[in-house]
């Protein structure tokens, strides 16, 4: 999550949700995101809510799991009061930060708390992010034993100078090792890549893609590097020390990624995500784009339940204070009206291979679809069958496509 939070309405101290969230809840999945706001080092490009010290203003890393567990229990109460607490959880995602910086036992306890609160669906997807150098064979085995089903490794690149630019500390040779151990432990594997770092060439990027494909992962995410305000990278760009990634080059790198991944048998299901089969897609990731319910646990985490979005206090110490006082750590929230929900739907579902149902569009937007097909931004065939799915070019210009679908 980014270092700055949006503005919103005040959130009630006890976290109470309006009755409206119960409408249609049985048709929605419930997911849990568990944020772990710690890293060993902060990478220059990163603007996520994470901290490198063992102790942040009196809050110790070793106490964090208990705070997260306390929020899980609070969440259970709040959802129960709102009448949406009866579904077993279908996806869990440990993200960060670096979740595997916590002892596996802590992560296991957090997952147990989720299980205790709502129960896990039999086919639940439980993912953790991990750095290649923050886990070993033992840890992966223990994670699997605790109920984790999937691991997403922050590989980023296979090229040393790109890893150095990104300030990633792992040795690229460690990736095959950890992938092997994960498989051994029975975990599904996803590899995360970043493209468009300053100095990265198209050849560098292809090398990284090939190295990733050589591991036969179930899933690949490829994210364009974004220069976020307030990061060290942004300052370096401002001072002219490095050249900001160019949109044209990033577009080219994206096209190469799509070509290589497609040739290797992967297909895209969201702008930045590819999977070997439909079953290998990240259901947790998709839940963000398809308007499911999820509860984000931890400082700065975002949640969505039935048309209410909220986000927690950002600082771990401020978060801990609220939790200790038995109060909701929510910083602010937003109650989405029908039109905003419609706009969000267009915004989000236009990014996925499943596409956006035409019914979500107003007549002007529906009329625009023909022009978008003619311009090669939207696939013709699915549109005829009632869904707007972007083409490769349309994925890269998704903001334009969305804006045009929403023309008044």
């Amino acid at each position, binding site marked *: 999550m980014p270092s700055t939070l*949006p503005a919103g309405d005040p959130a009630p101290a006890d976290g109470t949700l309006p009755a409206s969230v119960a409408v249609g809840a049985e048709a929605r999945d419930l997911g849990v995101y568990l944020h772990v706001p710690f890293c060993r080092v902060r990478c220059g490009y990163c603007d996520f809510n994470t901290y490198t010290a063992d102790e942040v203003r009196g809050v110790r890393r070793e106490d964090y799991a208990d705070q997260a567990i306390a929020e899980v229990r609070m969440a259970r109460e709040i959802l129960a009061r709102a009448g949406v607490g009866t579904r077993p959880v279908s996806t869990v995602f440990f993200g960060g930060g670096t979740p595997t910086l916590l002892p596996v036992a802590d992560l296991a306890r957090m997952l147990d708390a989720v299980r205790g609160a709502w129960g896990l669906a039999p086919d639940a997807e439980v993912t953790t992010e991990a750095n290649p150098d923050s886990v070993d064979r033992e840890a992966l085995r223990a994670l699997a034993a605790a109920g984790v089903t999937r691991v997403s490794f922050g590989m980023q690149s296979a090229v040393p100078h790109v890893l150095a630019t990104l300030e990633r500390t792992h040795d690229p040779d460690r990736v095959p090792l950890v992938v092997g151990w994960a498989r051994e432990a029975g975990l599904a594997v996803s590899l995360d890549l970043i493209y468009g770092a300053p100095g990265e060439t198209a050849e560098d990027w292809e090398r990284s893609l090939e190295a990733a494909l050589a591991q036969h992962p179930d899933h690949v995410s490829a994210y364009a590097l974004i220069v976020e305000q307030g990061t060290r990278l942004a300052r370096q760009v401002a001072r002219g020390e490095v050249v900001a990634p160019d*949109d044209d080059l990033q577009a080219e790198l994206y096209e190469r990624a799509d070509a290589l991944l497609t040739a290797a048998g992967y297909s895209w299901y969201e702008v930045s995500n590819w999977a070997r089969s439909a079953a290998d897609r990240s259901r947790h990731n998709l839940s963000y784009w398809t308007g499911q319910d999820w509860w984000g646990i931890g400082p700065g985490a*975002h949640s969505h339940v039935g048309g209410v*979005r909220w986000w927690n206090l950002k600082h771990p110490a401020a978060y801990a204070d609220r939790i200790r006082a038995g109060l909701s750590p929510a910083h602010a929230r937003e109650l989405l009206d029908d039109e*905003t929900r419609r706009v*969000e739907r267009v915004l989000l579902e236009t990014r996925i291979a499943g596409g956006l149902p035409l019914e979500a569009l107003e007549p002007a937007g529906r009329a625009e679809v023909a022009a978008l097909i003619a311009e090669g931004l939207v696939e013709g065939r699915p549109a005829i069958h009632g869904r707007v799915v972007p083409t490769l070019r349309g994925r890269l*210009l998704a*903001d334009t496509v969305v804006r045009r679908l929403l023309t008044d």
Partner: protein
Amino acid sequence: MSPRAPIPLEPASTDPARIRNFCIIAHIDHGKSTLADRMLQLTGVVSDRDMRAQYLDRMDIERERGITIKSQAVRMPWSSSVVEPVATTYALNMIDTPGHVDFTYEVSRSLAACEGAILLVDAAQGIEAQTLANLYLALANDLEIIPVLNKIDLPAADPDKYAEELAQLIGGDPADVLRVSGKTGEGVEALLDRVVERVPAPTGDASAPARAMIFDSVYDSYRGVVTYVRMVDGGLRPRERIQMMSTRATHDILEIGVSSPEPTPTHGLGVGEVGYLITGVKDVRQSKVGDTVTTAAKAATAALPGYTEPLPMVFSGIYPIDGSDYPELRDALDKLKLSDAALNYEPETSVALGFGFRCGFLGLLHLEIVTERLQREFDLDIITTAPSVVYAVRTEDKKTVTVTNPSEFPGGKIDAVSEPVVKASILAPKDYVGTIMELCQSRRGTLGGMDYLGSDRVELHYTMPLGEIVFDFFDQLKSRTAGYASLDYEPAGEQEADLVKVDILLQGETVDAFSAIVHRDKAYAYGTMMAGRLRELIPRQQFEVPIQAAIGARIIARENIRAMRKDVLAKCYGGDITRKRKLLEKQKEGKKRMKMVGRVEVPQEAFIAALSGDTESAKKK
């Protein structure tokens, strides 16, 4: 009240021998308003308690820029024994003059209302070109000149040097140059005494039919038009019916009075006096500067000399950024016109900018003041097109077309084009002569001569096309001379020149707002400059956008905006959908401020920046 400011003389029955009418000629920020403030205090017409800085400059813009746009007159009592053996009371009328080259005509009328002028010069900077121009006007009107150095309290002041310069300029002894400080008040009493001593008393025929010259006309939203006049012959009384000699229109005087400095009704105005009239008219055009006021009952036969209609020299299109503000813009111009007799405008349509107005101005400052007032007083977001002058274009079939807007430039074969020229005088330290000559030559100027003022300053005389001056000349002059050079110009006829219209095309469509009439030798430079600017300013579109500059059908420059390939953000930031939606809302808001040129979306900022040359600040947006 000051001991030197006794019981004032009664207006309407003041002996002309006791009247002194004077003005202050000064450059912007040479301290005229501050000096006027001290005079108001010393003569007791404004109490120390009511004093606020630059009392007479009423408009915000005037106070902020430290310049006077509209003139005013203030009547101040002053007792002095410099003329008579005993202390005698005088009525001093200080007539404030506009301080800028665009308002030469208004200045000339203010000067015509006076018998004397204080030539006020900053003791740290010396005289400037505009002051020189006004000094020439004052001498041409036979005014008694009282040279004064101001700001002698400044550490950088060099009064000896500039006293020498002034004495050389107007003749006389450097010792006669008064030295004052408007800030501390030092020397101001002596200056008022000098006015009494040196400025001649007005003369006029009290029994002749009334003749009063209008030297200013101000619109007041509560009182209608306030007309400032100088009585020359006869007198005017309250409730009298008056006649404007240029139009023969008659009005009843509702109020007559003097400013001291707040309006004070009187029993009338007599020979040599200065005051105001209110007749209830609502439009300054019915009360024109330079016109002669007489009485309907006993009308004068001959008007006072010197009246001319204001003639616009510079034209520009003014458009609302939001097309739906067009009615508001029209209302605002209608209101401004009430107080600005020189402003004229007519509706105009631009393909790129929509509905707007073609406006005529006296000069660039006038244009700037009007646009600033539209933005500030009427809260309008506007775009102004590049300023243009009046061209006379003769076509092959010997027809002459008057062109004030590049879009009116005839398309067929052109026989000749003539453009207005001006005599420009530029005053600067002598070290800058080289760089100024270079600039003027590049603007098709012809050097007419050089005069040295004192030992280190030079006045250069150039004949130049006005079209070259309105396009960015003053900014260039200032930046090349570290701000030291000053400029003044006056119309000097017309000349034929090899002028062409350069069009700018976006994706093959002419953007009329960017067309310009330029000299053939500069067409290429203008074309590449504009095309280059637009390439920087117009965001990439889904498709490639060629930008071309053309004379007729001939392309003279070309740039390309490559198609945009990517705008999607990769991540959703751990479920922070709100941030993504806000971004979309911002983009949609941004699109509302786009103008469509064919299929190309051009942001308003790009128009403004391309037209003003300010590419940097637009890119930051």
